[in-house]
């Protein structure tokens, strides 16, 4: 049974999505089904994580074809942890969508597509085959297109055109990389690739292919200079969709970069330098971009880019401690960014817009909510003992150890500029007096909500804040997980052994 556990996160989401499609015209049923299904998915994902934690890397050969010929699903600690986080965020957002998603949008199949997206994410984390990774990426982008355009407002469509074009191009680049890789090695299984690549004599072609992959994943991850689609589209959809995108979508790109550049093309030489410089520029332009924006949601969008720099910077240092820091930061970022975008949705309901200069006075009007909202904001800055602080310890330590002053400066710059931006957001939204704006007639404001609607907006935020507090207070647990992941990533032998030795163990 434990053998099958690894595919269950994907299957469960697929079954939920198809069931939801049958209830196309019944929004209320869909809402209940989605929450129940997501809860089941959380339980399954935690079972998977428990199994991986206790018994080591789990492998399933799809269709019972032996390893290099069929598609393998590989659940190592990194993949299992990310699947768990994905399912938690999915559950939270499916609760949040209760108030945030109007029934008209639900009737366009919002929940079904949402679960297809989660299926794609789980698949992308679990697969051990590079072409299968491409297929999951396509599942992700096609469902995210639909989510982005549901509602069909003018600005959404404009954002979707940009999002569509660049993501489509990145898939094409990724597929080009796969074609070249297959031509050179004759294999698509990541474990087998990691064995073949070192034996290839023509290092130039390997270098070229690795750079093609870097561009392909770089678009998804939002790296400099390929990030421009992100701030153009993330502020257009409803907050629930933005939260999902902001929390998880770019992290798939980062995950793919980490996987490919530890397992298939271990970082070295030129690639490492390129990645380091890109991380620096990503932090710089993301930070500066966030500084000049005047809309809270857009500030958060640019902050995503800025903080991708932390993870890529950690990867580019390529020591075990740096990877520990990068992975821990990724776990923290998924939760915090999803929370921030959900908070952005609450702001919209409170003020009728999300322009910084129109907002204010939150601390007077809603003191308890302000305290709740303060926790993720401060966690993002990394004020000890909140969760952003702990991964930075590892990252700073690693760059100091590696004698890499450049990365140290980049990390410090990123932390400082985040502090400035969050201080600005705090000043504008919580502290200063609100400017009088005309009330929109159509919009239902936060104070007009009844208790059920209010709790559907606040409880998800509360749940994620609890996760952040868990990260902060029991940081040693997460550090332990991250250390094991760092160890596994640096020693890819165990991954390869797990993929190929399955048959012997089973007998």
């Amino acid at each position, binding site marked *: 049974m434990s053998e099958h556990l690894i595919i269950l996160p994907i299957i469960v989401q697929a079954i939920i999505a198809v069931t939801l499609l049958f209830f196309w015209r019944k929004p209320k049923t869909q809402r209940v089904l989605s929450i129940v299904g997501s809860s089941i998915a959380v339980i399954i994902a935690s079972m998977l994580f428990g199994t991986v934690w206790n018994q080591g890397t789990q492998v399933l050969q799809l269709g019972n074809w032996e390893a290099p010929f069929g598609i393998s699903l590989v659940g190592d600690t990194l993949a299992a942890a990310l699947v768990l986080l994905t399912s938690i965020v999915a559950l939270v957002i499916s609760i949040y969508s209760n108030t945030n998603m109007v029934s008209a949008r639900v009737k366009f199949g919002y929940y079904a597509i949402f679960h297809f997206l989660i299926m794609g994410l789980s698949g992308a984390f679990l697969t051990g085959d590079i072409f299968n990774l491409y297929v999951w990426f*396509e599942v992700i982008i096609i469902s995210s297109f639909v989510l982005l355009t549901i509602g069909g407002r003018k600005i959404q469509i404009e954002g979707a055109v940009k999002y569509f*074009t660049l993501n*489509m*191009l990145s898939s094409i680049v990724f597929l*080009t990389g796969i*074609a070249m890789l297959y*031509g050179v090695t004759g294999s698509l299984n990541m474990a087998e690739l990691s064995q073949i690549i070192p034996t290839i004599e023509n290092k130039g072609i390997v270098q070229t292919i690795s750079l093609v992959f870097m561009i392909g994943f770089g678009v998804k991850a939002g790296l400099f200079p390929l990030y421009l689609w992100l701030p153009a589209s993330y502020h257009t959809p409803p907050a629930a969709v933005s939260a999902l995108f902001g929390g998880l979508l770019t992290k798939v790109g980062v995950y793919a970069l980490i996987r490919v550049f530890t397992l298939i093309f271990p970082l070295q030489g030129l690639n490492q330098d390129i990645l380091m410089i890109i991380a620096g520029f990503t932090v710089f332009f993301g930070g500066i971009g966030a500084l000049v*924006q005047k809309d809270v949601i857009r500030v958060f969008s640019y902050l995503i880019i800025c903080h991708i720099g932390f993870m890529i910077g950690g990867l580019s240092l390529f020591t075990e401690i740096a990877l520990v820091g990068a992975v821990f930061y990724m776990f923290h970022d998924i939760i915090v960014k999803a929370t921030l975008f959900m908070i952005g949705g609450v702001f919209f309901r409170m003020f009728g817009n999300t322009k910084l200069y129109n907002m204010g006075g939150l601390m007077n009007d809603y003191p308890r909510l302000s305290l709740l909202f303060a926790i993720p904001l401060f966690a993002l800055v990394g004020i000890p003992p909140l969760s952003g602080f702990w991964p930075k310890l590892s990252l700073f330590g690693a760059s100091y150890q590696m004698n890499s002053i450049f990365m140290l400066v980049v990390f410090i710059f990123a932390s400082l500029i985040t502090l400035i931006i969050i201080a600005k957001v705090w000043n504008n939204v919580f502290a200063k007096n609100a400017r009088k704006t005309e009330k929109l007639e159509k919009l239902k404001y936060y104070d007009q909500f009844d208790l059920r609607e209010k709790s559907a907006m606040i409880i998800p935020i509360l749940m994620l804040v609890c996760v952040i507090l868990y990260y902060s207070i029991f940081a040693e647990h997460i550090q332990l997980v991250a250390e094991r992941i760092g160890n596994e990533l640096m020693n890819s032998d165990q991954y390869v052994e797990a993929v190929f030795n399955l048959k012997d163990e089973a007998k």
Partner: protein
Amino acid sequence: MEILLAIMTGVLYAGGIYFILRRSLVKLIIGIVLLGNGVNLLIFLMGGLVKGKPPIIPEESHHLEGLYADPVPQALILTAIVISFGLQSFAIVLIKRAYKVVKTDDIDAMNKTDDIE
């Protein structure tokens, strides 16, 4: 034959990029279609061309012998075609929608999402 296909791939890539850089939405989609076909051709080419040797095991034997066409690239291309079919049909619906809502075909006019205000 390989050289012809290689040139063809290059032409498709170049044409695709040229169309994407134009300002019209329709040409953007055409460019993406061309690039997608270029990639498919590239996969086919990278798998190596073998003429008239299907990978079918003869009845008296248990494994393939001699030179045979690699079936994997063809499976990959088939998958890629199916995926790009879905994406491109979505794209066409999207540009129709975009034309109706934004009332222009010009990509440069779609700059509302990047206004700082």
